[in-house]
């Protein structure tokens, strides 16, 4: 045979010298590998760019400029304030008066416009009123308050507002900044970590200093709880049925097409659905994390189902055969062997699906979770599900739309919290996924 003689007469190639074709193939190999590395690098680069810009814009939200003052209220003043319609503004006035007199006591050598003090302070009346309503025994004794300065003063310390950019407005005069500096020197105005941002709740648009994301974190928490508890089991169950049990017929084809189609349904349409079905038809409460969770569950399901099905499909048939061969039922085969092998893909779907759900705003718009919603922490578990609450992305979205730059900064701060929430939420899934990953 010719071929044999051909092969036989060929000179033995050395392994260390690479022939032209191999060199070409190796170059292709290197390129291919480089593409992969580049792809990852691009992905990570974008992540870093995004992370840096988020952190840069958001970190200031975690500090707050505060005004420290010892403040005493008399019973008379208290009664007077309580008798007014806008009680909080009465407290605010008292507070301003107190601050003004203390400045003189401290012998501050700056001349200032009395109205300036009003401009320096944030909205503090609510805090003061709440304090005295809870501690009526403190009336008449001096109390040390640390209250938020106004958004612009805060911005001045964070570099958001500078002497050059300030234009006289009714929110802040250029001349006020001298007073601010003076107060800062004597320690009446200081910067502190903004716990309130982490634990607080939303405020009106004129009170950026008081705004916090805490309550909406709880809202998101309850919402994601619903999403996780419903979408993971339902998604996995549906995938198992479709991939392992469903006969090949029009009905299962219908389900299959439906599921992939649901993935393409814009999230706001799920909001329309939620409004119609859960609120108008089933009479579930409006603005409730429960409803938000249900809507997001429907939105997340396709992601989980599609990834779960793909991973179930990837389990080699020989594993199923082996189990069936020792007399396991199909159900047992799936739950004992196939599912564990598909677990990484399922968890990936869950991670991505939940990440999407966590950041989604549009459907919440229609079921009433966007706006000015959450004012108080839920009282218990049930209340956590059904009482009106917002969610982190919704809160961020509303803040981002507000005029005051202080809210804009808070929106980015909120994004940082959201991402921390996301990472915490995912970490368990990621660890689990690593444990299940193996090749066979």
């Amino acid at each position, binding site marked *: 045979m010719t071929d044999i003689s051909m092969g036989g007469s060929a000179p033995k190639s050395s392994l260390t010298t690479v022939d032209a074709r191999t060199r070409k193939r190796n170059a292709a190999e290197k390129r291919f590998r480089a593409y992969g590395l580049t792809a990852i690098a691009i992905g990570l680069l974008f992540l870093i760019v995004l992370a840096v810009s988020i952190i840069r814009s958001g970190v200031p939200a975690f500090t707050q400029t505060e005004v420290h003052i010892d403040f005493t209220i008399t019973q008379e003043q208290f009664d007077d304030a309580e008798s007014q319609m806008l009680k909080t503004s009465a407290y605010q006035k008292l507070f301003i008066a107190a601050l003004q007199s203390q400045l003189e006591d401290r012998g501050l050598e700056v001349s200032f416009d009395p109205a300036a003090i009003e401009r320096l302070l944030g909205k503090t009346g609510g805090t003061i009123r709440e304090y005295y309503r809870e501690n009526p025994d403190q009336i008449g004794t001096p109390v040390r308050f640390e209250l938020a300065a106004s958004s612009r003063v805060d911005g001045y310390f964070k570099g958001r507002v500078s002497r050059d950019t300030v234009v006289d407005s009714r929110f802040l005069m250029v001349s006020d900044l001298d007073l601010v500096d003076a107060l800062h020197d004597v320690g009446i105005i200081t910067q502190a970590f903004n716990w309130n941002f982490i634990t607080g709740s939303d405020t009106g648009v004129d009170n950026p200093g008081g705004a916090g994301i805490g309550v909406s974190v709880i809202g998101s928490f309850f919402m994601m709880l619903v999403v996780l508890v419903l979408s993971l089991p339902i998604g996995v169950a549906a995938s198992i049925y479709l991939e392992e049990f469903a006969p090949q017929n029009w009905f299962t084809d219908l389900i299959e097409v439906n599921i992939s189609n649901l993935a393409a349904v814009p999230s706001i349409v799920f909001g329309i659905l939620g409004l119609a079905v859960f609120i108008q038809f089933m009479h579930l409460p409006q603005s409730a994390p429960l409803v938000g969770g249900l809507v997001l569950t429907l939105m997340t399901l396709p992601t989980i189902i599609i990834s779960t099905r793909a991973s179930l499909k990837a389990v080699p048939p*020989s*594993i199923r*055969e*082996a189990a069936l*061969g*020792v007399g*396991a039922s199909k159900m047992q085969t799936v739950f*004992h062997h196939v599912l564990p092998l598909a677990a990484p893909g399922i968890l990936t779907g869950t991670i991505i699906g939940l990440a999407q759900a966590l950041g989604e705003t549009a459907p919440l718009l229609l079921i009433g979770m966007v706006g000015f919603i959450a004012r108080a922490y839920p009282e218990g578990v049930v209340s956590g599900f059904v009482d009106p609450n917002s969610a982190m992305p919704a809160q961020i979205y509303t803040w981002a739309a507000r005029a005051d730059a202080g809210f804009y900064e808070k929106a980015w701060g909120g994004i940082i919290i959201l991402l921390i929430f996301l990472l915490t939420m995912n970490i368990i899934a990621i660890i689990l996924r690593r444990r299940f990953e193996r090749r066979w």
Partner: protein
Amino acid sequence: MYDAPHYTRQETGVTDVKIKAQDVQVYYGDNHAIKDVTVDIQDKTVTAFIGPSGCGKSTFLRCLNRMNDTIDICRVEGDIRIDGDDIYDKRVDPVQLRAKVGMVFQKPNPFPKSIYDNIAYGPRIHGMARNKAEMDDIVERALRRGAIWDEVKDRLQAPGTGLSGGQQQRLCIARAVATEPEVLLMDEPCSALDPIATAQVEELIDELRQNYAVVIVTHSMQQAARVSQKTAFFHLGNLVEYDDTSKIFTNPEDSRTESYITGRIG
């Protein structure tokens, strides 16, 4: 030619029919892989299926415990009865069937789990052990019967997929034996085994025969002659001849059988 007169059991005559297959046809899509096969498999007997590669031995074997159900394009026709029950009947639970009719596959397919769990899985789902100690016993016994105990006893928690080819094969035999099926279908169980291990497995088969029916596919005429009492010769999807092993190997009726065992057709 091979003769193994000392094994044959035609004299006994007492065995019942365990599996009765009648006019079985199997199609893979358009490919007619098994044509009109009719065969009675006796209880307490070792039946060997022989025939050239691709003739349909595995296919037929898989019909007997409905493992073909898992192949989408595979279609089975005809009548197969085990202990008189039609196994393709609607009411038959294929799971129960497979618990009764165990199988060792041609390609060893250990679970990606530990060796211990590979064996323990079957007994566990069949509730064969009340406690850990009993399970340990079962696992050890199965591994011993699979002639692999000595090699793995120190690494029972190592993954079953990290074994050598022959070890995997024996593991799969042990796994099948562990559930104590009434019929054991073995598709080339010794293909990756050295002579000693082969002998041990053959011993196992002989032992199993005391109580169960065993069907074994093999390419080794010697092995067929050694272990089986009945032999079926398949060729191009047809069951050409089925008879006592001694008969087949000494005095085949069909010329194709003769050609095959003397090594002339493949």
